[in-house]
């Protein structure tokens, strides 16, 4: 995160956006391809989308999947990661599988998941969750491993029970990393949301994209992608802001 966000940085960012827009416009006009609309065409399509109802209905449908999937991923991944980090010996057996999950492109697993679970809301949410879970588990595990053993000694010396050690030391110490886990998981969940709809179940945003593609309406396709990017960016920025706010009270930054 660029901390030096003064008026100068804002001007620079705006200038950067302008350069991209102009280059896009020039490329779009020069090209005769149907698949590369110009910047202005895309903006017109975006305006039409934002004022119409289809985009919002699609966003609503997709985000329900996102929220449900992400909530499930967090509810499952954080306790699992914490447990694996706390008891590393049993965790050793899970290691190769977890690493595999982290490396394998989840996209490749989507068809299998849908064959098993069908194409309903729960199955889509499960796909979203499966995108987010591995990174959440790994981050949560690292978070609890990094807890300063001297603090745990102090807690034990003053008579903390195992439950109190979690509440007073492990969880507060892990909190900043758990927030990072959630933010990275959310980014992956957005990916999962788009992928499941594009690949297999044409509802929501994915359905909208396929629909526009079928009609060779390239400006609208690009406009929808911009909307998805904007949502992802907004979620990330919001996540970072929340992290900073909580870290401020929760952690020592020496």
């Amino acid at each position, binding site marked *: 995160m660029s901390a030096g966000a003064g008026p100068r940085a804002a001007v620079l960012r705006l200038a950067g956006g302008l350069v991209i827009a102009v280059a896009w416009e020039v490329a779009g006009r020069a090209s005769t391809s149907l698949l590369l609309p110009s910047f202005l065409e895309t903006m017109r399509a975006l305006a039409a989308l934002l004022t119409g109802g289809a985009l919002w209905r699609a966003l609503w449908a997709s985000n329900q999947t996102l929220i449900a999937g992400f909530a499930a991923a967090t509810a499952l991944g954080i306790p699992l990661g914490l447990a694996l980090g706390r008891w590393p010996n049993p965790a050793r057996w899970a290691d190769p599988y977890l690493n595999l999950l982290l490396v394998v492109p989840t996209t490749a697993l989507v068809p299998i998941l849908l064959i098993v679970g069908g194409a309903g809301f729960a199955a889509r949410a499960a796909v979203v969750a499966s995108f987010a879970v591995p990174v959440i588990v790994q981050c949560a595990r690292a978070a609890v491993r990094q807890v300063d053993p001297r603090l745990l000694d102090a807690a*034990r010396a003053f008579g903390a029970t195992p439950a109190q050690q979690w509440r007073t030391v492990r969880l507060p110490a892990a909190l900043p990393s758990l927030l990072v886990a959630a933010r990275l998981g959310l980014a992956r969940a957005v990916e999962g949301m788009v992928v499941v709809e594009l690949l297999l179940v044409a509802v929501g945003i994915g359905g909208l994209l396929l629909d526009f593609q079928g009609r060779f309406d390239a400006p609208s396709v690009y406009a929808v992608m911009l909307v998805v990017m904007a949502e992802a960016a907004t979620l990330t920025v919001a996540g970072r802001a929340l992290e900073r706010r909580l870290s401020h009270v929760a952690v*020592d930054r020496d």
Partner: protein
Amino acid sequence: MISIVGCRKTHRGDGRQPPVPVLDGVDLEVRPHEFVAVLGPSGCGKTTLLRILAGLEGWDSGEVRVHGRPVSGPGTDRALVFQDFALLPWATVTDNIAFGLELRGVARAERTAVANRLIDRVGLNGFARHYPHQLSGGMQQRVGLARALAVEPEILLLDEPFGSLDSLTRRGLQEDVLRLHHETRKTVLLVTHSVDEAARLGDRVVLLGPRPARVIETIETGLPRPRPDDIGSDRRFVALKEHLWNRLKALTSR
């Protein structure tokens, strides 16, 4: 009060490293209200001895008793002050001091009142709402001391508490500890590798040999209580230091 007879301990190796004998039959007796300084070369196992007394570690053979009962874990009658302070970085000075009370389920209002009294007592007025990283090392250790006093232990266990402080700060804290001992008459067991500190603070100095540690010599300092400010020029003090120095030198140059 504290009675250790023939305490042996070997740190088990982890397969690659061979087991390391740490304590080789340590005998130590501490009377109520006494201030005993355990002096030994770095790495001789004196911290292990203190951790055993605090209930953080077990031992292999021999007897370790407090109030005649074998130590079986941390207890409310003992409080440990750590070399590296081990304060909770996300908690204020007040909350750190009240930590032990919180673990015992004391209500917030009451533990805050106790913390405030101790803040006054250890000279941290105006810093109640500060976080550890906003304090100097000396102030952090005052918090560590206050945290130990807050649980009203009969025995204070000090693990090289001033080792990481500059000499001026160290002297100030030593005087505070002397004053606290004089006022509260708590039993104090101090572990240190500083000849000056052992002689300056202890009623008795217990000299440990290099690892695996055994008690080489126990010396009644015979210095007056309360210690006068000019103890540094007292001939008995100077002679005691000289003697301890020579013994330590002989022990470590074998």
